[in-house]
């Protein structure tokens, strides 16, 4: 038997082994296990602020760790920094390329980053007298879909070139490249302990990676289309994904499998974004149908909806203190709800 044939056989055998191992621990699913848990209250949130200022579709937003400032990115070619309490714009950062797809706030509050169809991640210093570009991270060969700072010296990116990368912000070079997806990487989420992250891609898979050694540790299957949104739950033991297949799923890391699917026959729009409340009980998922649906993460039931945008909800975010949820839309507005 040629080596190729041998390896195909071994690959099939390993896949069968993995499925069997997952089945062996599948003694229940999340919804059944949570049958005795009191339902989450029906959640009725009001729009407290509508942030007007962008002139085109909003593609991304990210909260600062101070729970007050946030950055948003629009294809009007600007990043806007907002004071969410007053609704005022604190800063505007003009972008070299208006085709922006992601933005990020560094935990320190000193830096923000953006990227998109220019294939680059540009990092800006907000604390210099005039906002300065401090680095242009240029090595991806496809669009930049998501960026997240680990600190002022390291940033993670995901790209349409199917890779993710960890960059050193002092040298501007990639320290580690994460190779394994076979479709555009669309999103990433850092674990609470920052030792690992998960990525979602157009190959309909979510993957768990070790930040330091670049190794893909686990692969989560189940979605039948692009995964556009991904987030660790606050305990770090599970992840939530949102997909163009119109569902969200929870995958448990230690059980290595899907444990619940958030879906509704009436919902036939793709999921664009998601964010969790601080206890992990509520999932805020933005959809192409202009709404943000609220799911009970344990029981898999819809417990509310945020309606108010006049176009696709493209991004959602909950600040660290959990005091509100922000939605951003192609209608050019951001809304703060609680």
């Amino acid at each position, binding site marked *: 038997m040629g*080596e*190729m044939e041998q*390896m*195909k056989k*071994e*690959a099939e055998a*390993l896949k069968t*082994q*993995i499925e069997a*191992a*997952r089945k*062996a*621990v*599948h*003694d*229940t*699913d*999340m919804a059944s*296990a*949570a049958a005795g*848990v009191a339902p*989450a*209250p029906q*959640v009725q*949130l009001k729009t*407290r*602020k509508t942030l007007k200022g962008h002139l085109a579709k909003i593609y991304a937003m990210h909260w600062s760790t101070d729970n*007050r400032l946030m950055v948003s990115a629009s294809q009007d070619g600007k990043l806007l920094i907002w004071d*969410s*309490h007053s609704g005022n714009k604190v800063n505007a950062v003009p972008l070299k390329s208006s085709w922006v797809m992601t933005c990020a706030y560094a935990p320190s509050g000193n830096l923000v980053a953006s990227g998109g169809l220019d294939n680059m991640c540009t990092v800006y210093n907000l604390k210099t007298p005039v906002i300065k570009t401090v680095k242009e991270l240029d090595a991806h060969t496809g669009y930049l879909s998501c960026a997240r700072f680990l600190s002022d010296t390291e940033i993670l990116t995901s790209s349409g070139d199917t890779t993710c990368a960890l960059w050193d912000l002092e040298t501007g070079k990639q320290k580690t490249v994460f190779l*394994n997806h076979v479709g555009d990487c669309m999103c990433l989420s850092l674990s609470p302990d920052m030792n690992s992250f998960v990525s979602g891609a157009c190959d309909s898979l979510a993957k768990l990676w070790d930040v330091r050694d670049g*190794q*893909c*540790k*686990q692969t989560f299957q189940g979605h039948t289309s692009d995964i556009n949104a991904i987030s660790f*739950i*606050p*305990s770090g*033991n*599970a992840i939530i994904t949102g997909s163009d297949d119109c569902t969200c799923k929870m995958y*448990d890391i*230690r*059980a*290595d*499998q899907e*444990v619940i699917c958030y879906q509704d026959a009436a919902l036939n729009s793709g999921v664009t974004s998601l964010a969790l*409340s*601080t*206890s*992990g*009980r*509520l999932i805020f998922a933005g959809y192409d149908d202009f709404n943000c649906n609220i799911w009970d*993460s*344990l029981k898999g039931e819809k417990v509310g909806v945020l309606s108010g945008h006049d176009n696709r909800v493209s991004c959602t975010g909950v600040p660290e203190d*959990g*005091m*509100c*949820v922000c939605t951003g839309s192609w209608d050019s507005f951001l809304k*703060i709800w*609680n």
Partner: protein
Amino acid sequence: MSSKMQSSNNIAQARRTVQQLRVEANIERIKVSKASADLMNYCSEHAKYDPLLMGIPASENPFKDRKPCTIL
């Protein structure tokens, strides 16, 4: 690309695939019942500190517009 190079690329790719599957096959897995129980415990322990779940009194809501009072 010569067909020899192409087939050695394919073999290299196949080796990487098998190597990756070996890593993924060898992890320890816990029972879904245990995983679910841990998740439910986490949610219930943190529920009381979750403002979006518990609701926020108007006086403590930094996003609520303070309407000016009119003395009639």
